[in-house]
């Protein structure tokens, strides 16, 4: 089975009381997560740095390029900041050009002692620059592994546009992991998209839809620093899903497993 993975994120989930017993690997998972946390905050890695795992752990790094796609203001930059454990900007500044952000996510394979350090590089670009400069979109799509298709729960049109959005962004022949993310899920008071519609969308398109709240917090006791562990718990479901699908895609490509398409889980 391709899904022979135990995820670092599940350990966090268990700590916050949302334990998934069959994947529970307390002490181990915790150990790996300490490599992407410093004290209680997220560690930021420069391009010439790597998380250091204990020497007895045979860890491989698997790098992936993920394009974050969606119209201006939908929440691309906020989502990437949230995932990376950076502060989400409270005012909207249109992103200029391309901006990439690297995030590490340690994952332990379920049926072996192997740990895979997933290295996700998120590519985010502003819409204006994309229209004004020809080189930007091709650069984002060059050697792509996955695409996050964003819509906002507070913007009906962005949800309705998803089918076209997909057509514009990816061709079917490409081997690219596609994941839909609904942003601004915290704004449920103003939501324009119902739960039922999301369910229907998943069934029709056989694509997973993740709900995200790209808001700052919780904070550490100093009131200024983001709590890295709690922040990770909020994005773990998305990172796990990406890791799982990308790993599966690699195994299919390597002929290790049959290429069944990945239907939604849960």
């Amino acid at each position, binding site marked *: 089975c391709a899904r022979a993975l135990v995820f670092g994120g599940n350990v966090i989930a268990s700590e916050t009381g949302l334990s998934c017993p069959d994947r529970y690997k307390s002490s181990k998972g915790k150990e790996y997560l300490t490599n992407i946390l410093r004290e209680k905050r997220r560690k930021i890695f*420069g391009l010439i740095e790597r998380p250091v795992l204990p020497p007895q752990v045979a860890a491989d790094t698997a790098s992936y390029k993920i394009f974050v796609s969606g119209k201006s203001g939908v929440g691309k930059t906020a989502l990437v900041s949230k995932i990376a454990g950076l502060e989400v900007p409270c005012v909207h500044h249109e992103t200029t050009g391309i*901006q990439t952000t690297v995030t590490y996510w340690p994952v332990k394979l379920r049926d072996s002692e192997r740990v895979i350090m997933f290295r996700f590089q998120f590519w985010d670009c*502003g819409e*204006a*620059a994309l229209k004004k400069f020809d080189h930007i979109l091709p650069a984002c799509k*060059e*050697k792509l592994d996955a695409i996050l298709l964003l819509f906002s729960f507070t913007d009906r049109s962005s949800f309705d546009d998803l089918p076209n959005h997909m057509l514009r962004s990816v061709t079917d022949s490409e081997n690219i992991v596609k994941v839909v993310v609904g942003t601004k899920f915290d704004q449920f008071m103003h939501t324009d998209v119902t739960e039922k519609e999301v369910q229907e969308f998943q069934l029709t398109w056989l694509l997973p839809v993740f709900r995200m709240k790209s808001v700052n917090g919780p904070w550490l006791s100093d009131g200024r620093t983001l709590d890295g562990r709690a922040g990770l718990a909020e994005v773990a479901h998305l990172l796990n899903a990406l890791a799982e699908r990308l790993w599966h895609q690699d195994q299919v490509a390597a002929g290790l497993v049959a290429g069944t398409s990945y239907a939604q889980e849960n």
Partner: protein
Amino acid sequence: MYTNTLRKKMEDRAVHLLCLTASSGVPLYCRSRGTSQKQLPFPVIGSLNGVHMFGSNQDVLLTTTCTENARVAWRVFHSSITLIVLTSDDCASDLYLGRLLENVFNAMVLVVGLDDLINIKNVERLKRDLRASYQLIDSFLEVSEMVGDLVQCVDCVLSNNNGVLQSCLDAFTQAAESQFGCLLVRGKVVVATEKWWRLSAQEVMLLAWLVASLAPCSSRDYPIYLPQGSPTVPHRFLSFQLLPGVDVCVLCGPTPSLQEVENELVERFWKPLLEPLKDCLRIQARAFPGCISLHQGIMGLLLINREQKKSLYTVQPHAGEARPESTLSAEERQSVLRSFYTLAVSRYFVSEDGEDKSMSTQEEFQAGFSHRGKECYVVSSDHKCYGIQHEQHQLFLLFKPEVPTFALRNITTKTLVVFTKELPFC
């Protein structure tokens, strides 16, 4: 005069920046900082613009004015864009306000290009495009730890490893098919290629401030216009975060792609230099390495290389443990040093190269003296300052009040020798 500043908290000083179309007075944006973050009421914006327009209709150029509690400066760029700055900081000098407006306009050119600012076809679109320059513009309104905005010479860091870093940067830049490369630590230049230094001093400063003002990311491919060198044709500005706080930048044409440079070059060239790069982070606040020790009475230093358009600026001039008690907070030391620089260059060290002359609309007394000073000093109850101007360098030092006034000159001269003769900041 500027000691009043110290009594007031910096944050209490409000600054409002207005940008309007010169022809019709349509507001393009408004940026503010300070406790009264509230936007200026529309009628105030209208009057500020109106009085300037009225003047120009009468062939009167209104440049600055001050009221009981505010200072205002106006400037029109290319007969197309009007910038107005209003500040409650009663010590903001004309020199500073003038350079602020210039920096802001250059920031606009950098991001949207000169064409779109001169031929405004669609105001709404321009407004939208200009939003991308807000972070850079805001960084000029904030109280900064850098001084390049005022002196128009980029802040630098002098590292022990300048040699290896320079050769690595040269090789990396060449491999990226460019001649323009620069290594930055928290917005200060560590090393740059020879061609980079041939960009105008303002461009070198703007690009460093751009990186410092943007939210940190692993890498970026950012289209920019060079205000002097290429105001209408964009270039690709690539930056790579080697370590948090340390970025290497190159200016490129259409190739290579961001991904190519990142995957093939970044680690290959820079990973061997991990330790020297970490060292840059350690020394950046001080701006020069621990092996140089200065007189214990010095609380701040601003050294400008006028030929190469570089500056070294610090208010923490003493390494680690040896940090002496200071009467002024870091922010106050910055403010005093900036004010002293302003006083010196606008009154005593007036430049001959006419660059500032054209702007000078001051009264005769204010414009300085018929002769040029070479040295000047200021003594106040909680600090002293001494400035020296040589052919190639200007050095401004901030001292503790206990240092005897007769010793200031000697210490300053000796300090200048340390930096110009014994170190590579020449």
